[in-house]
C-alpha cells in the first residue's frame, strides 16, 4: 500500500505560510490592542475573536461570497494578481489567516499587556526609539507569547477543515489538505489510508506541542 503524503505536505505548507503572515499582521494588531485607550478597542477585540465562536462553515460561507470572482473583493484580487481566491492555495491562506487570527493575537496581546509601559518608558529614557524598543525590549520579554501564538496558529491551521471545505474544495496539490484527504478516505471507506494520515497528524501535533512545552519550561522568560 502506498500512502499519499501530498496532503500532509500541503497542510504543512499552508500552516507555515499562514503562521508567517499572522506573525506579520498579528504583531501590530496585538500591539495596538494592548496599548490603545480608544473606545474602538472592544469592537476590534470582538471581531478578532469571532473565529473562536463562529462555526467554520459560517466563516467559510461568507469568505466564499467575498472571494467570488464576480464579487467586489474577489474580482479585484483576480484582476490584481491573476489568481482566483476561490478554490486556490492563496485563497486558503487568506481564509486561514482570518480563521487563526485570535490564536496569534490573543497570546501576543496578553504578553504585551503583562509587560506594561514600564520597560518601554525606561528604554525610551535611555534613548531607544520606538522600533528599537520593540525589537530589543518588547520582543525578548514577550517571547513566551510569541511561542504560544506561533504554535497555536500553526496547529490550528493544520487541523482546519470546515473553512477549507467551503472556500477551497478538494483539489489535489492546491487545496486538498490533510483533513480533507482523511475525510475523503473515510467517505470512500479507505480506512487504511485514513488511519495512516490520522496517525501522522496525531503524532506530529503531539510532538510539536511537547517541544513547545519543553522549551517553555526550559526558558521561562520572566516579566519582572
Amino acid at each position, binding site marked *: 500500500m502506498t500512502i499519499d503524503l501530498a496532503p500532509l505536505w500541503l497542510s504543512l505548507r499552508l500552516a507555515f505560510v499562514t503562521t508567517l503572515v499572522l506573525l506579520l499582521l498579528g504583531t501590530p494588531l496585538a500591539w495596538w490592542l494592548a496599548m490603545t485607550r480608544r473606545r474602538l478597542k472592544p469592537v476590534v477585540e470582538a471581531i478578532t475573536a469571532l473565529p473562536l465562536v463562529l462555526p467554520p462553515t459560517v466563516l467559510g460561507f461568507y469568505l466564499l461570497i467575498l472571494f467570488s470572482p464576480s464579487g467586489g473583493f474577489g474580482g479585484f484580487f483576480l484582476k490584481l494578481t491573476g489568481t482566483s481566491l476561490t478554490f486556490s492555495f492563496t485563497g486558503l491562506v487568506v481564509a486561514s489567516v482570518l480563521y487563526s487570527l485570535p490564536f496569534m493575537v490573543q497570546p501576543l496581546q496578553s504578553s504585551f499587556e503583562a509587560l506594561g509601559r514600564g520597560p518601554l*518608558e*525606561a528604554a*525610551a*529614557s*535611555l534613548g*531607544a526609539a520606538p522600533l528599537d524598543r520593540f525589537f*530589543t525590549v518588547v520582543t525578548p520579554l514577550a517571547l513566551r507569547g510569541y511561542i504560544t501564538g506561533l504554535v497555536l496558529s500553526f496547529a490550528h491551521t493544520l487541523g482546519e477543515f470546515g473553512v477549507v471545505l467551503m472556500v477551497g474544495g478538494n483539489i489535489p496539490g492546491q487545496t486538498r489538505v490533510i483533513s480533507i484527504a482523511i475525510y475523503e478516505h473515510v467517505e470512500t471507506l479507505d480506512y487504511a489510508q485514513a488511519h495512516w494520515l490520522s496517525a501522522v497528524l496525531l503524532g506530529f501535533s503531539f510532538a510539536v506541542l511537547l517541544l513547545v512545552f519543553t522549551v517553555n519550561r526550559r526558558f521561562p522568560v520572566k516579566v519582572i
Partner: protein
Amino acid sequence: MLALDISLPRDRFSVKVRHRFSAGGVTALFGPSGCGKSSLLRVIAGHEPGAGGSVSCDGDVWQGAGFVPAHRRQIGYVFQEARLFPHLDVAGNLGFAEKRAKRDNGITRDAVVGALGLSGLMHRAVQDLSGGERQRVSIARSLLSQPRLMLMDEPLAALDHRAKAGILPLIADLPKRFGVPVIYVTHALDEVAQVADHVVTMKEGRLIGVGPVAEMLEQPEMQGLAGRFEAGTILEGRVASHDRAMLLTCVDVGGVPFEMPFMDVPVGFSVRLRVRARDVTLAVKRPEGISTRNIHEGRVIKLMPEEGTAFAEVLIDLGPAHVQARITRAAVAQLGLAEGGLVFALIKSVSFDRRALPGVKNVAAV
C-alpha cells in the same frame, strides 16, 4: 536650564506648574503622596504627550511647539521600581544605555561602576539583585546614557533603612562627580535633608515654595507638608575632631560645637546635620548634672503656638544656625518663653544618629 509652564489634568485636580529649575546640584521636589510630583517628572521626561503648555531645556523646546519624544530628550529617569530589563544581566543593562548615548559627557563605565560599587555584580541576573542593588544599577544605567539631567522618582521608597543610607550619599554626590543635575522626587523629609541643595515644594498640583534647603526646612509650610513629627532644621558644619576611644565626632557649625556618635568622615570635611524639633529640649537656666552633651545658648526668634494641639514650635537662633524645638504650650507658659528671650537648647547626641552625612560639597578644609 529647564523651564516649565504646563498643565496636566489628573483625577482629583490638575497639575499646573510654572517654574524655571536652576542649573546644577540636587533639587528635591517635595510634597505629600499624590500631589502630582511624579506627573510633573513624567511631563519633563516626555512620557506625557497629552500635557498642555510648554517645556524647554537650554533653548531646546521639548513641548509646546511640537513634541519631542522621550528618547530624544536625553533625560535620565530612575523609577521607583528600578525597571531593569529582566532579559539582560547587569552588564547588559548598562550596555543598553551606552549603545544609545547620543553625546559624550565624559561619563565612563569604569567611573560609574566604581562610584556605585557594581564591579562584583556585572554578570548577575537582575532578578537576583537586592532592592538596593537594583536601584544602584538603575542609577548607573541612567548615567551611562550621558543624560543632560537626571530625574529620580522616589528611588528609595521601597528600600529598607540600611539600603537607603547606603545610596543617599551617592545620589547627593552625582552632580559634583558626574556633572549631571538631579531632580529628586520624595515625600520623605529626611531624604530631602540629606540630598538636596534646593527644594521645590508641591501641593495638590501646584508649586508652593522654592528655595535653598536649609531655608526651606525651617518654613512652617514645608513642615506642614511633612507632618509635624518630622519638623526640624538643617545645620551645616565641618568635622572638627574625632574621639576614637568614646566613638564620638565633634562637628563645628560656625563656631558652635556639636557632639554626636562617630561618623566616618575625615576631619575638615563638611557635613550636614538635621535636628528634628521633637529632639530638642529647652531650658531657661543652664542645666547641670545632665547627660545631654549639646547645650547651647540662643535667642527665641519665633514662637508659634499650634492652636488645637498641645504643642508650640519655637525657633531658636544659636548665632551661626537655627534650631527648632517642639515643646508643649504649657511649657512655653510655665517657662515664660517669649520672642527675643534667651534660652538653652539641649540636643541629645543620639538624636543626630543617621542624619549626618558628608555634605553635598564635600569640600576639604583649607
